Every structure is written in C-alpha cells, then in structure tokens.
C-alpha cells in the first residue's frame, strides 16, 4: 500500500475546529459478526475517560447476516438521547456502506474496510481505509475465531484517531470479557494491531477528539431491561412467568441470572423463586394472576403482541382484583410491526386493555434508575390496589446501554396492601371480599392457605361478598367502587417531574425515553431562539392533579410522543376540560428510531411560527429493506 492511499486525496472542504467530546460514532456491521463486544468496549472506554456517553443498537429482526448499526454518542454536556447526525462512521458492512457514506454530513469521518473503496464516493469527508483482513491474520492464527476478533481492530484504530487512552480500552476489554483469558489475549492483540496500524499510517485529518473529563465517576452502564430485573429482584418477586419476545426477553433472562446468583437459599441450595417459561403470553399472565391471587409477588414481561394476547386476562385481573406486574417493553406496531425498533405505541390500548369498562394503572420510567425504582413501586402498587400494574418501557430504554448512578438500596418498607388478619377481622366484625370499608375503593383480601375466610373469585358479576350476582345494583356498585379505587390511585402513583420556568409561555409534556431528547431540545430552544419552555415529565397513568396546574400555567402545551396518533394527548382529552384541551399540540416521532432533540426542536419551532431549515433525514439506519 502506498502512502497516498492512506487518506482521502482531497482535504475536507470545510476547515473545522476541534470537536471535543461532542460527537457520535456509528458502527455499521453485519448482524451476527460479533461486533457487540467491540462496540461495548468502545462505549465503556469513553465512559472510563470520564466522558458522558450512551450507546444505541439499531438491529434487524434477524440472527445473522443483515445490517446492524451501533451508535455511540459522547457528550460533554451529558446528552444521552440519540443524535440525529452521524459524525464518525465505521463502515464494515459492504451492503450498506455506500448509503451509509452518502448520508453523512460534510466534514464527517469514515473508517472503512479497505476493499470497499469508499473514498471515491465523496470528497468532503475524511477517509481512513483499514485492511482488516490483513491485520487480523497475524494476531489471530485460528481462522475460525478471526471473524470475532476482527472488529476489535477498529477499536484500536479509534483509540489512536480519537485519543482514547489504550489503558482505558484494555480496562474496558477486561470488564467486557471477564475471566475468559484466551479471549482477552486475542482481543488485546487485535486492539494493539489497530492502534499500531493507525499510528504508523494515518495523519489525523478529522476534528473529533475524546479528551479526559471527570463526569462519569462511579457511573454504571446498564440496559433498562437489566435495571428492571434488578428492581424486581429487590422487590422480592417470587413467581415469574414469561414468553420470549423482543425487546422484552432480556428482562427475564437477566432476572434469571440475578435470581440464580442472589436468591438461592444458602443452606438448602433451593430457589426462593419460581421462573417459568410459559407456552405463550396468555399463559404467562394467567400464571402471574394465579400466583398473585395466592399471595405471591408475581410478574411477567412482554411487548405489544403479548399485551394484545393478554387482554382477556388483564380484564379478569382488573375485575376480580388480583395483583399482577406486567412490563411492556414497547416496540413498533401494529401487528408484528418493526420488532427491533422502538416506539411508545401501546399507551392507549394498555390503559384500557380488555373489554367492558376496564382501566389500568401505568407506570412510565424514563431512565434505567427509574426502571429499577418503578419496578419496586409496581409490586407495591399492584398489592395495594389489587390490580395489574403495567410498566411501560420501550426498546430504546430496555435494550440500549445507559449511563447511570449506581442504584440505591431500598430503604422504604414494602407494601403488601390490605390483607385480612384476625385483628382486622375482629375490628371489622363482618368481612366481604369486595366490601369497601375504608371509602378508598380498596377492600381487604384473603389468600388461599392464610387461614382467613375463603371466597370465590370470578370474572362474572359479583356482590361485595364475592357471591355471583347479576343484580343491576350490585353491578353498578361494584364498577363504581373500582372507579373509586382508580381515583385513589392518583394519590399513590409516582408524581410527574415538573420543571416550570418563570414567564415561559410554552410547556412540554413528555414521558419515557423522550425525556432525553426533550432535555436537550429545551437547551436548543433556549440557545438558538431564546424560547424558554417548561417541562412536565409524566411518570404514571392515572394523571395526578399537577397536570391541570401545569397546563393552566402555560399558553401552549407540546405533548411529545413516539407514536403516530398522539396517544397520551388522547388520554388527556378524555378527562381535561375543553379549555385545557385547546392548549394541547402534538410533537410526534414514529419512524422506529429513538426520538432525537433536533426533530423535536424543529417541529416545535415550526408550530411556534419559526422558519426551520429543512434538512434531509439521514436515512441509513432506517432504510433497511428486504431480508425477511
């Protein structure tokens, strides 16, 4: 190879100043090529450099052979939402390389597999060709393992080009591979081969740099699904029934791992839990309901298609009043939809899941910390309200890596709800399973085997004593009490997080993973257009009193959602006054990719009457077709 091949023939047209700790890297590979280790090592090495970082995997519904993109964002300001633009591309996939390159902004940089000859495509980018196959052969004599080790080379290349210390890379690598000594050695070799090659061959031409900061001390990196699993374990879950479905499977799988390790009785070697892979989502929820009815803390995790299947059982649990905790890690629907892409499309259908007058309590975490904390709250609330609690996560939160503070050990006592005891019975005199003695709509319950009076649980009409009844007055009394219970829940569900700005005319309402983009968007609004926006982050349904107060304090409210129909806005319309509804506007993002700040800012500003420059949407990660 002659030195002239090393970088692009022409220098990037724009002279750019150094961009430090504020750019995104996209790795384009083929699914199943073992790039996950390399990507996570890169991610963690930036974290170890003290720079706030986030990682998002955009993968196909496929095991091997289709394109996949992993995006890492370094952000000195701590933004962890998706960045719309890609600044640094690692092009490893021949199938998408051309389009990946063509959609980059001018001034971006590209590391690519040399045979792809991408440097002829554009003259306004920096190109770094790397002969991966040539480099991997000497460091990995076993040809069968080369495919897995090859990707580690780009980590070495990037370490050199971006200025990530090799020590951090090596530390990240040993974190990732743990005690697998042989794998660590092989990968270290590849890492070094990459670094050496870049050191000997490239002159730094792009503006992107990682420089040491001190913003990540003590931080953990975790996926929301694992965080929720830890929350379930710490909540004392004992019965888990599940059916594999993307993107929720890793919640139960990590739970299995943690429970085996931390919930096995030391003396007997027996499990203080039962986890069952059921035959489908219907059976999963049936088992959870049976277990909750018998007094256990029980949960399942699923995604939209599973939620649809659970509909009938959800109504039974609502009406018969049995606790259940259901995690819905939302993906793109309707139907099979885009199984590996993110959305907030189940909100409306889950709030009313099942036939008849049914309403459910939803908890909506935004962060991995909240996945952990709201998992614990979900069990408390499900026993307090004797009803299913749905924890509405999404793929972005559940399956992507998020930086967080270490989770706090729970100090709050758990709430097992209203259980009839001999003392309570004595005080009440007479007990009826569905008798509202406290005026909060919640009756005392008994469970099989507790020695207290038994009752007959049924999904058919019943009176306060749980006897079968088709009487009109019994029916009305019962469903009105259920409504009363739902009203009581408003005082128990997690309150919104409100950041109200003085003199702000507009307010933003958002929930779930939109939070991270909204957070960044508010800075964009302030810095680019001097528009100050208050912010209301919803954490639960039913709504609490803060909602009306927030709307009243602003002239216009933008409800940011990752669905087509503005589902939260619809839910709000059902109970807000027409004057308040008139203030509501939607900002919607529903292409399967995590919402980004730029998209919100542009949409919101254009609704506010600002001129917004239209930019072509980078299409690479959203443009996969075929391969069914």
């Amino acid at each position, binding site marked *: 190879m002659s030195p002239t091949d090393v970088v692009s023939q022409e220098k990037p047209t724009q002279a750019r100043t150094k961009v430090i700790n504020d750019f995104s890297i996209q790795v384009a590979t083929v699914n199943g090529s073992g790039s996950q280790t390399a990507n996570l090592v890169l991610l963690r090495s930036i974290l170890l450099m003290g720079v706030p970082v986030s990682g998002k995997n955009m993968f196909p519904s496929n095991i091997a052979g289709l394109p996949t993109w992993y995006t890492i964002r370094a952000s000195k300001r701590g933004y962890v939402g998706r960045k719309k633009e890609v600044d640094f591309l690692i092009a490893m996939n021949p199938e998408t390389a051309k389009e990946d390159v063509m959609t980059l902004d001018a001034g971006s940089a590209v590391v690519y597999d040399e045979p792809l000859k991408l440097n002829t495509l554009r003259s306004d980018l920096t190109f770094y060709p790397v002969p991966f196959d040539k480099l991997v052969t000497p460091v990995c004599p076993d040809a069968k393992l080369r495919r897995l080790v090859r990707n580690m080379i780009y980590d070495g290349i990037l370490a050199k080009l971006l200025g990530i210390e090799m020590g951090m890379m090596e530390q990240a690598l040993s974190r990732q591979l743990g005690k697998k000594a042989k794998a660590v050695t092989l990968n270290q070799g590849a890492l070094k081969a990459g670094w050496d090659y870049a050191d000997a061959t490239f002159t730094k031409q792009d503006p992107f740099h990682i420089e040491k900061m001190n913003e990540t001390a003590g931080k953990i990196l975790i996926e929301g699904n694992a965080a929720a699993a830890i929350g379930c374990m710490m909540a004392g879950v004992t019965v888990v029934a599940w059916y594999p479905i993307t993107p929720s499977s890793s919640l139960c799988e990590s739970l299995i791992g943690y429970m085996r390790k931390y919930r096995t009785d030391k003396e007997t070697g027996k499990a203080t839990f039962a986890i069952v892979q059921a*035959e*489908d989502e219907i059976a999963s929820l049936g088992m959870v309901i*049976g277990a909750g009815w018998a007094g256990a803390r029980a949960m399942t995790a699923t995604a939209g298609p599973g939620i649809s299947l659970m509909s009938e059982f959800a109504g039974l649990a609502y009406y018969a009043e049995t606790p259940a905790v259901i995690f819905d890690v939302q993906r793109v629907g309707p139907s099979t939809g885009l199984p590996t892409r993110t959305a907030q499309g189940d909100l409306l259908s889950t709030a009313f899941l099942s036939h008849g007058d049914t309403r459910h309590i939803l908890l909506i975490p935004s962060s991995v910390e909240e996945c952990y904390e709201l998992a614990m709250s979900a069990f408390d609330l499900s026993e307090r309200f004797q009803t299913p609690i749905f924890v509405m996560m999404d793929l972005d939160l559940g399956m992507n890596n998020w930086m967080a503070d270490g989770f706090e050990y729970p100090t709050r006592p758990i709430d097992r709800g209203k259980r009839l005891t001999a003392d309570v019975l004595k005080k009440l005199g007479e007990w009826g399973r569905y008798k509202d003695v406290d005026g909060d709509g919640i009756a005392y319950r008994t469970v099989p085997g507790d020695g207290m009076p038994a009752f007959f649980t049924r999904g058919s009409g019943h009176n306060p004593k749980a006897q079968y009844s088709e009487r009109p007055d019994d029916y009305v009394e019962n469903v009105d009490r259920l409504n009363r219970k739902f009203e009581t829940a408003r005082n128990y569900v997690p309150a919104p997080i409100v950041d109200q700005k003085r003199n702000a005319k507009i307010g933003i309402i958002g929930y779930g993973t939109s939070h991270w983009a909204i957070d960044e968007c508010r800075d964009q609004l302030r810095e680019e257009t001097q528009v100050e926006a208050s912010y209301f982050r919803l954490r639960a349904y039913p709504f609490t009193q803060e909602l009306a107060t927030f709307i009243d304090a602003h002239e216009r409210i933008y409800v940011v959602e990752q669905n087509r129909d503005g589902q939260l806005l619809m839910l709000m319309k059902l109970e807000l006054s027409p004057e308040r509804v008139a203030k509501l506007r939607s900002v919607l993002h529903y292409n399967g990719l995590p919402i980004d700040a730029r998209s919100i800012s542009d949409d919101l500003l254009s609704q506010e009457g600002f001129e917004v420059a239209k930019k072509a949407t980078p299409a690479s990660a959203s443009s996969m077709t075929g391969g069914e």
Partner: protein
Amino acid sequence: MATPIKVNRIGLEPQIYKGGKTTLCAGCGHNAISERIIEAFYEMGVDPKQVIKLSGIGCSSKSPAYFLGGSHGFNAVHGRMPSVGTGAMLANQKLIAIGVSGDGDTGAIGIGQFVHLMRRNLPIIYIIEDNGCYGLTKGQFSPTADVGSKLKNGVVNDLQPIDTCALAIQLGATFVARSFSGDKKQLLALLKAALSHRGTVMLDVISPCVTFNDHEGSTKSYSYVKDHDDPLEEVSFVPFFEDISVEYDPGTTQEVKMHDGSRLFLKKLEEAYDPTDKLAAMRVLHETTRRGEFATGLIYIEPDRDDFLRQLNVVDEPLASLPLERTRPSKAALDEIMESLR
C-alpha cells in the same frame, strides 16, 4: 346422650365439605361428580382451607361453587384455568389444587394450556366433566364428540374426537383415569387415589348432558355410556391413615403404592392390565375406542416422578409467604452488582 356428630379424621363434619346450591340442570352428571368430590375430600380428611378450586368457563366450570364452600375458588377465563392453577401452586405448593374443566374448555379453546399442563406434572387434580357438547351455549358439538354422534337437531359429527386420556398419557401426565358420573364407586375410589398422588392427575369423567346430549344417536347419553362402559379393573382404595391389611390374590389383583403411602387395589376384570405400562395404556384406549366403548378406571399411573415444583427446585415453604429478608438480597449483593457494571 345425644348421638355423636359424625366427623372425619381431622374432626370436620360432612357439612363443611358442601358448597352452594347447584344451578345446573336437574339430573346433570356434573352434580353427581360434585357429590363424589365432597365425599372424597371428606373421607380423606383434607383441610378445605388448604384447597383451591379452579375452573374455566362453561357448565362444568360453574360446579366448583357447589362443593367445598370453605375453600378458595377461582373461576378463571375460558380454557385458561391451567395457567391460573400453575401460578397458584407456584406461589404456594402446600395447597391442594382441584381444577374442573369441560370438554370444550379443555379440548377446544383450552387445548394449548391443557397440553402444557400435562407436560409439567404440576400437582393438580384436573377433572374434565365430559359430555361431548357445549351445554351453556345450548348444545353445539365439542371436540370430544365421537364420530357419528348425533345432535338433537340431527346434525352428525364427522370430525375425529380428541381422546384427552391418550393425549395426557402421551404428554407426560402421571395419573390418567376415565370414569363415568354414574359409577359412584369407581369415581370415588379414583378421586381418593387422586388426592394421594403428587403430580398431575387427569381424570376424564363422562358426564351426560341431560338437556342437550342425552338422546338416541348420541354416544354421550346415559344409556349409551352405561352400555359401552368397559371398566379395566375393579378399583379399591385404602388410604394411608387406615391400617387395614388387605388379602388379595396377586394373580388377579395389582397393588399400587401411592405417593402418600395409600394403596390402590386393582382387581382384574377381563384380561390382564398393568396401568404402569404406558404402551399398554395407549393400546387399551385405542382398542376400546375402536369397539365404540369407553375404557374406564385407572388407565395410567407413574407414582414417583418429580412434580413441577421439585423440578424447579423451590424451597419447601410457600413462596407467597417468604419474609422479605429471604426475598430481598442484601445491600452487599446490590453493591456487588453495581460494581460489576462500572
């Protein structure tokens, strides 16, 4: 002196084991089954407070309200009782679960959950009150209707029936029996034996529907079943708490030792039959079906296989009542997890 009140071995009167007044049709076979359940639980001295009664939807599924009024009951959704029962038993393995289903609830909408229940060997007595039709929706065929059986309106079934016993044996149920609601003695003995078994008991009880399926041309009518009942053996049961020595001829009677120490005596009627032989069990089901008969009695038993909870290796105490200190790992454990993520 007043006559002493009749009580069972745990000091409870028969009255305790009764339930609400039946709302099923007069003469319904299901009522006879409820009566046998009451007798069996009373005579075995089962504590009703430890019993859970489960059912799906249909006439059969109403019946748990008519026995064991002091026990918890759960009338779940159509065809999905097995999952609810599974969850309840996972939560508290000290419970004694009895599930009542129908041939539609099991064979049609619930076939998926039935199949997987049988595979797991969950400790539950699963009774199918089998009348070959949907009673509560006025008599449509169910999946256990025999080929050639006729509805009241003359419609003839030409679809193959599902033999729930053959299916259960193939899938791994460890106690499979068939009986007839009209055979008090056999049904009572089988129910008592079921209470002594640890694992899934699948008991298919042919129970004629007097309103929609008791006419000429039906193969699930009283008279047809009575004429075509082919008992495999004469079943007698000696519970573990009765110290009775039984004289029997090993040539004609087989003794089966139950999980709790009770004994079953199976006196051969026609040809030799060994209910611990899976292949023989499948053969006898196929042969009797071909003859248009119903093989009744204990068809298959495997007394010692691990039940589902043992397979899951759960602690001996009910999971539902474990205290928080056993279900919430220590702060050190959480810190260890956090450290692994840094």
